[in-house]
């Protein structure tokens, strides 16, 4: 045990890998000191575990209807009660973690690289390319995200894929902004000038040297943004424009419980709590990562 920490914390690392691992370990130590961030990390890890082992955790089939057991209050067999089609709400929430994760992952995978590329290109090349691209982000950011996403879903038609596309279209501009701001600082550095003098192409400089340095602030930005993505996805689901029934999407589940809110409160309440916890987890994690990863 001590040998490992010695290896990681040494002042004179003997290899690049050791230095890099040592740096990561130090960051982890700093991160661990922040209790709120650790709570966030635990929530996200729990989310991943629940999604992975959903069939083991769920007490019933999330799609199995049982009209004899409609709208039952929380009890021993149905921990969170049943909905208007007699489905077990706890099991639906458990399976809903998968839907949430799919949405989040798809948005990250599509938005991150696009925002990064546009921002880094814009910042590195400057001139009219920069002006044109930044004007474009201005226009998109002039729109409220939810309203723009709504308009896109209205055009594309409701559904999980279209909701993801709409969210992605509205989500990239802030990423481009962050990447551009980072690039503007990085490109002034001497080592970039050195690489340029060695004859590296502009693409090589952007991809190999600028982009990797933008990553930390983008990761922070992404984590903080995930809560927003989850809330917008839930909002679209709530309006019936996101995942379609019978998919156990949390926003749609709240919408389904809306009519019975005064008599059967549990139908809408528990999915909402699930959304809150997961969004809070991403927010806490992002907050902690920001403190560790970019000190500025």
């Amino acid at each position, binding site marked *: 045990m001590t040998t490992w920490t010695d290896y990681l914390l040494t002042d004179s690392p003997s290899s690049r890998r050791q230095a890099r691992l040592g740096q990561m370990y130090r960051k982890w130590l700093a991160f661990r000191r922040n209790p*709120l961030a650790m709570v966030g990390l635990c929530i996200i890890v729990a989310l991943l575990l629940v999604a992975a082992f959903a069939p083991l955790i769920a007490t019933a089939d999330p799609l199995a209807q049982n009209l004899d057991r409609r709208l039952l209050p929380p009890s021993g067999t149905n921990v969170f009660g049943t909905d208007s089609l007699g489905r077990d709400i706890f099991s639906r929430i458990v399976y809903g973690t998968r839907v949430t994760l799919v949405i989040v992952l798809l948005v990250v995978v599509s938005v991150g690289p696009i925002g990064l590329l546009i921002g880094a290109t814009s910042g590195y090349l400057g001139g009219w390319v920069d002006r044109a691209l930044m004007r474009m982000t201005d226009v998109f950011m002039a729109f409220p995200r939810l*309203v723009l996403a709504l308009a896109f879903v209205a055009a594309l038609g409701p559904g999980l894929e279209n909701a993801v596309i709409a969210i992605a279209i509205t989500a990239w501009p802030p990423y481009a902004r962050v990447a551009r701001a980072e690039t503007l600082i990085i490109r002034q550095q001497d080592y970039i000038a050195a690489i340029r003098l060695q004859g590296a192409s502009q693409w090589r400089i952007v991809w190999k040297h600028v982009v990797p340095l933008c990553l930390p602030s983008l990761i922070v930005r992404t984590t903080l943004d995930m809560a927003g993505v989850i809330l917008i996805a839930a909002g679209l689901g709530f309006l019936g424009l996101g995942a379609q029934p019978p998919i156990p999407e949390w926003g749609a589940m709240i919408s389904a419980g809306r009519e019975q809110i005064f008599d059967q409160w549990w139908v809408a309440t528990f999915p909402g709590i699930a959304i809150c916890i997961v*969004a809070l987890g991403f927010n806490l994690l992002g907050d902690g990562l920001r403190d560790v990863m970019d000190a500025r």
Partner: protein
Amino acid sequence: MTSVVESPVRRRSWGETAGRWAKIASRELVTVAITIFGLLLITFFIARVIPIDPVLAVVGDNARPETYEAARIELGLDKPLWQQFAIYVGKVFTGDLGRSVLTSNTVVDDIKRVFPATLELATLGTLIGCLLGIPLGVVAAVYQGRWPDQVARIIGLFGYSIPVFWLGLMGLLLFYAKLGWVGGPGRAGVAFQDLITPVTGILMIDAALEGDWDAVRDAWSHLVLPASVLGMLSVAYISRMTRSFMITELQQQYVIAARVKGLSEFRVVWRHAMHNAFVPLVTVIAVSYMHLLEGSVLTETIFAWPGLGRYLTNSLLNADMNAVLGGTLVIGAVFIGVNLLSDILGRLVDPRTR
């Protein structure tokens, strides 16, 4: 004896100030023009990608080919895309957003009718957000790193994590159904429905103008919950920004000077530091106002509030594209307007830019 050294703080002449302002104004105008152009481009693009055939929507499914073709030409869909866009822009600027299929009014008339309700909601929401958020942020800054700061941080993070439509439902469940403190969904109770003649469109003011205080109370009881729910959304953002501005201000030397002069801590914080922190806060309040307009889309759906948000979602669910795009465009334009206004206001309250 006259001093040869000019004072370092030279007052700008009137001409200089006017020239600077003209320069700033022209730059702002170009920005706004480009943004509005982009806005129109996006709504036009959305209108083009919809799978619904706009011609069929007019002539019906069983139209003869000749009728179909005539309608297509009438709608201008045979022209090249850039010409269609030019026509669209021309129409928008003459105040023609088309006709809503759902209400069979023009979209402009519809929006004029529903917008005051949203304005009422978002304004009170922002007010609540400021009244709670600013003190919270100031306290967090003063007790930086100690428990009040942690509490403020947790409240802020919760504010960023709660879906507004769920919060609205929970509010209705608790304050309306269980406690009976507030009126239910809608803008007015059944007894007061359509009794007040709209003057400003803002129910409470109209009722007060008529001197009907029962109606004012009723309107208030319906307004207070949705506005508070919206306000909670902005508390997180406003308090967080207030905190960071106040931390900057409290490190300034004038704060030390004020303390050395023996002013009470209350006066130092709330008069001296707060005064300066307020300058950047203007922009923050404007931004949160815009976010509340966005939040009103979902909140209005929950509270059956007859505003722009509900109009938008209603049209959406009925595939009433003219209304959707018109509403989107208006919200976008309001965003740009508020942004511009906050920019100007920020410059006005900041003595350094004078």
